[in-house]
């Protein structure tokens, strides 16, 4: 049951990353994916009665925080350049 929820969270997040064009929304969806993974890890930890899953969750928290700390300023700098939040405008690295 909880696994299903976790999978749903992950799937929704993945879908959002692929489909949505707004950069902040994409970041939020990536957070969703991470949380889905967290939930599944906790569930597994509880089911197998081992602490390893819980430890991993802590690791994921830290990584996610660090990632957001870098990602938001990047988005900020990009938007300051082009004043547009839409990801389609940022194709400078093509070719």
């Amino acid at each position, binding site marked *: 049951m909880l696994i299903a929820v976790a999978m749903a969270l992950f799937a929704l997040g993945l879908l959002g*990353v692929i489909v949505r064009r707004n950069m902040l929304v994409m970041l939020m969806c990536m957070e969703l994916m991470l949380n889905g993974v967290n939930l599944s890890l906790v569930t597994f930890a509880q089911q197998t009665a081992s602490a390893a899953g819980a430890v991993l969750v802590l690791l994921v928290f830290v990584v996610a925080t660090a990632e957001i700390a870098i990602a938001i300023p990047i988005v900020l700098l990009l938007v300051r350049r082009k004043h547009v939040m839409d*990801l389609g405008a*940022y194709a400078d690295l*093509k070719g």
Partner: protein
Amino acid sequence: MSHAQSLMVALPLAGFLLNGLGGNVLGKRFVSFVGCGLPIIAFGVALQCLADLTAREGTPLVETAYAWTIIGGRSFEIAFYFDRLTAVMALIVTGVGSLIHIYSMGYMKDDASYARYFAYLNLFLFFMLMLVLGKSLLVLFVGWEGVGLASYLLIGFWFEDADKARAGKKAFITNRIGDAGFLLGMFVLFEAFGTLDMDVINGAFLGGPISAVSASLVGILLFIGATGKSAQIPLHVWLPDAMAGPTPVSALIHAATMVTAGVYLVARMSGIYLHAAEASAIVAAIGATTALFAATIAIVQTDIKKVLAYSTISQLGFMFVALGVGAYGVAIFHLYTHAFFKACLFLGAGSVIHALGGEQDIRKMGGLARKIPVTFATFAVATAAIAGLPPLAGFFSKDEILWFAFASSRGGSPLLYGVAAGTALLTSFYMFRLLWLTFFGASRMTPEAARHVHESPMPMTGVLVVLAVLSAIGGFLPVPHYLEPLLPLPPVPPELQHVETTLVFVSVALALAGLVGVVLVYGGTGERAARLGRNFPLLHRVLFGKYFVDEAYDRLITRPLYWISDRVFLRLGDQRILDGSLNGLAALGQRGAALLSRIQTGSLHLYALLVVVGIVASLAWSWRHG
């Protein structure tokens, strides 16, 4: 072991180095002294060797200079060899050579490149001596190519004129084609005998034909080399053009010595030819054809040197006829006498040209007999000699050739005799024509030339006199008899023996007929000659145009060669196919990369999608193959 032969060879080489490196600095007198003196000393050494040879009753003198290289136990040596044949050749080379060097002192007196001229002349002498003194085909070949080089340098001596330079190149290339055949012949011999030593090879054939090697094949291959060097059909085209060089060069190289190298080669390898009937037949046939061919061309030429050039080709043809019927000693005899009278003729022509200040067209000469008497007298003697009037030298040697062409049981036939006799008639005719048009009749000279006419200086006339005397009495030297132990005369069927005296009379008659013919045609106003020219225009054009052989070679060989090299090899092969495929591969690479780079759209969505697709695919794969 004495070092006489090495000394003989080294002397002209020293002359080349001294004159070549220091000549310009040290002045004309030094150059003359060294340039003429060293060949004269070489002649002395040759006489000394002859004396030694006679003392040993003909046992050859052998000298090994050093080993050129040793491979797999087989040694290629630079060695010299002096036997009767070598003696005859060496004396001609050094003797007539020295005379021509002395003549050149006068002829080239005013030329700016005096030192270079004598350097080249000495270089030629060095290589020619290597050729005749060589013990193995290797040494002979070194000399062979070397005289080709010297000839190239001397023909193109006045190189500021592009045409003259081109004549030199033509000579070298034509010789090279002959050399290709020569090389192949050498290889066949080496493979069969493991050595290039001529003595060993001839000795191996003494007992009869050898199964390991086809004597005829070798004979033909070596003869191809001889055709190149001795200007026989089909490689004769370089000799007339070679007249672009200074006249003494023509006398030395293209009359007396270099062109006779082919005759010497065949005579030296007589051991092979004795057992190569087909090859000998080819030699005789080509010799006869060339002789007639060249003689017909000579009767209409108007340049004094060109007439003599074609005459040389023709006389060389005679020598090859003699070789082809097994009369090797007789061929050498004719080589000997020919050296005398042809050198005299060429040098005489040089004297005429010198006297007229450069004129070479006989249509613009005439009436010179009284103005340059010494030149005239010597020229007349030499002309009579070549025509075959007794008792001059040419009579004896030519008569022997005609006799063996008819009677030799190794290939003599009436047909061969007929062709040779016809050539003898033409020879007499065109030579007397030359004499007549140059020296007799009314003067057709331009006024400047007429004013300029003077007898040549002492070095030139002195040599002319010596050569004329030799042309007169040279026939009394018993050369074939001297060479008999080495080069036996061919057997003659007994039923033909009596014809010999008849043929002698026929020879004399032919010579006189030529003279009479000239008087008839060109005597008086020369109007009969002009009429003949008008009545046979086509024939005249063909003969004057040398049967258009040069043009045929150009159309059939030279131009297609260049065309193929340019169109097929370069443009089609190299540029379109090879480079095209290379550049095409590179273009392929670039286009492929351009195609692949279309994935880099810069759109993060696409990248994310691709990442997900990749993950799903790998998961699925690992699940399948788990």
